[in-house]
């Protein structure tokens, strides 16, 4: 059950003297989807490109079923990739695009039959003879995904495939992608900077920040028990008390006046605004000590303040938790 299918060991990458990421290690089981999140510019895409073989690793290695990939040429790596842009060949039809990878291994007729069957199963058969420019961005990305899937790679990499789409299309497409990946039993790494997307698609989530892997684990666990300040800031919703302690946002409340009690903590903050989301009211406030913004759940009858007015973020002392540590081990 816990058999390792894909493994990255001590991967590092630097361009000249500039280090992009160092000693990244993690592993995936078969049919598992990992969401790789992190602030932009932390080398998520470079890590993905290195796994694909588009860039060489500076050190470290990759294994699929225990077979090392680093010495393999790109065309011998059973790894597929979907890019930010669909990058469909503009002068080829949808069918020709879809079977591009198959054609490298199979006869034209066989490839076409397989391509048509795949297009049929995902409901894009009507577009088989169309050229890419006549499809919408979302449709193009679907075709790009099929083009990568049809050659049955052992590992599929998705590099922010929804980032160029508008929000509605994005939501629709990611459900479709998840369904298809699960249906095909694909092992995949999905890069995104969108937290919600990471939770929706990933069986596990890995947070890459400042050049190293900060935490990896089930979406809920990483959210509730961030390993450190970086994870808390980027992936969780938590008030960072100090280097070692945090309070999850759900335990915070807002009060105009300090209410001294032994088991209560107060942090002076400035009121910015209030919003409503999924039936809940939230106060957007700025903590004076750190100048950082927080979103605090609010009673719907709590009266709104004026932008700039001072108040307090309150929490029970018992809600304070210690960061779980730098890295979660696999066991």
């Amino acid at each position: 059950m816990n058999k390792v299918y894909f493994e990255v060991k001590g991967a590092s990458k630097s361009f000249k003297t500039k280090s992009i990421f160092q000693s990244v290690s993690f592993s995936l089981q078969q049919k598992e989807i990992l969401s790789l999140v992190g602030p932009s510019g932390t080398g998520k895409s470079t890590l993905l490109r290195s796994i694909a073989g588009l860039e060489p690793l500076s050190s470290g290695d990759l294994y699929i079923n225990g077979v090392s990939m680093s010495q393999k040429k790109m065309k011998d790596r059973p790894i597929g990739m979907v890019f930010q842009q669909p990058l469909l060949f503009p002068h080829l039809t949808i069918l020709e695009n879809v079977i591009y990878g198959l054609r490298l291994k199979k006869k034209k007729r066989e490839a076409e039959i397989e391509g048509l069957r795949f297009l049929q199963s995902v409901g894009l058969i009507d577009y088989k003879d169309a050229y890419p420019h006549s499809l919408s961005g979302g449709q193009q990305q679907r075709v790009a995904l099929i083009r990568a899937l049809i050659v049955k790679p052992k590992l599929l990499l998705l590099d922010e495939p929804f980032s160029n789409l508008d929000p509605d299309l994005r939501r629709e497409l990611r459900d479709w992608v998840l369904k298809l990946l699960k249906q095909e039993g694909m092992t995949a790494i999905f890069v995104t900077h969108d937290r919600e997307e990471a939770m929706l698609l990933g069986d596990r989530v890995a947070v890459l920040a400042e050049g190293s892997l900060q935490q990896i684990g089930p979406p809920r666990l990483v959210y509730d028990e961030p390993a450190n300040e970086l994870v808390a800031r980027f992936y969780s919703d938590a008030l960072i008390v100090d280097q070692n302690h945090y309070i999850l946002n759900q335990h915070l409340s807002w009060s105009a006046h300090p209410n001294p009690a032994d088991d209560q903590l107060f942090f002076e903050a400035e009121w910015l605004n209030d919003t409503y989301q999924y039936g809940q009211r939230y106060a957007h406030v700025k903590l004076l000590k750190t100048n950082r913004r927080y979103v605090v759940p609010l009673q719907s009858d709590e009266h709104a303040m004026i932008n700039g007015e001072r108040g307090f973020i309150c929490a029970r002392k018992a809600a304070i938790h210690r960061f779980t540590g730098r890295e979660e081990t696999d066991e």
Partner: protein
Amino acid sequence: MKWRPNNKILYPLIPALLFLLFVLYSLVMSFVESVRGPDGWTFEYYRSLFEEKRLYASISYSFFVTFISVSLSLLIGWGIVRSCHSFIEKSVGKWMVWIPMLFPHFVWGYFVLLLLGQSGIVSSALFQLGWLESREDFPILVQDRSGFGIIITYLWKEIPFVLLMLLPVYAQLPKQYGEVIQVLGGSRRHVFSTIEWPWVKPVLVEVLLILTVFIFTAYEVPALLGSSYPQMTAVLAYDWFYGISWDERSYAFALLFLIALVMGLLSLVSFILLNRKRWLISKSQHQR
């Protein structure tokens, strides 16, 4: 009223369309002159044109010179761009390529004469080095019957032209598609056939056609560097046009009109065939 918007679009095209009409008119007039005899319309000149021995000599000679010049210019120019485009685009190298473009063809022809003629600089230098006994020992490279001087001049002038036409294409080749092909398991050969060739082909064909018609029918260089027989088509047509007899004047028109017709149709067909793919490629949605 429905016509208004269409007309509005057409207004700015009027000057260009007038120009097109002007060119078309000139060709029609060439044809008219070629079928106008002293006693009315006749195709007699076309018939007797094809009985002219000078015509066949000229056509085959022109074809030979054009074929060699065009194919070598394209192959060499394309080869240079393929292997060097990464650094030519943003360097002084590009300025050097422009230098031959500054000079008219006949000036470059004169330079070839100055350099490679029997009394030229190279011949003189070889004599001074003691490698030649006399001027006559130097091979006749220009104003020769084989067309060597003409071909050298054209190669020297057209290779830079090919470079300058192809460089922008290579600068805009979408590199991301190369990565897509690699992750799909393709090799460099597939990158060439799927991306490079479709992107480059239209421009290559365009350059091929421009050079072919230009070299086949240009007057300036062969008039300077050619021998008296055989003559390139333009020189022959020029002789005929200023010849004494009416027949010959009509031959000039007939010859040039036939070439225009063949080349025009050839170009039109190639463009119609290429336009669809070219249009699809222009729709490419990679990030530039």
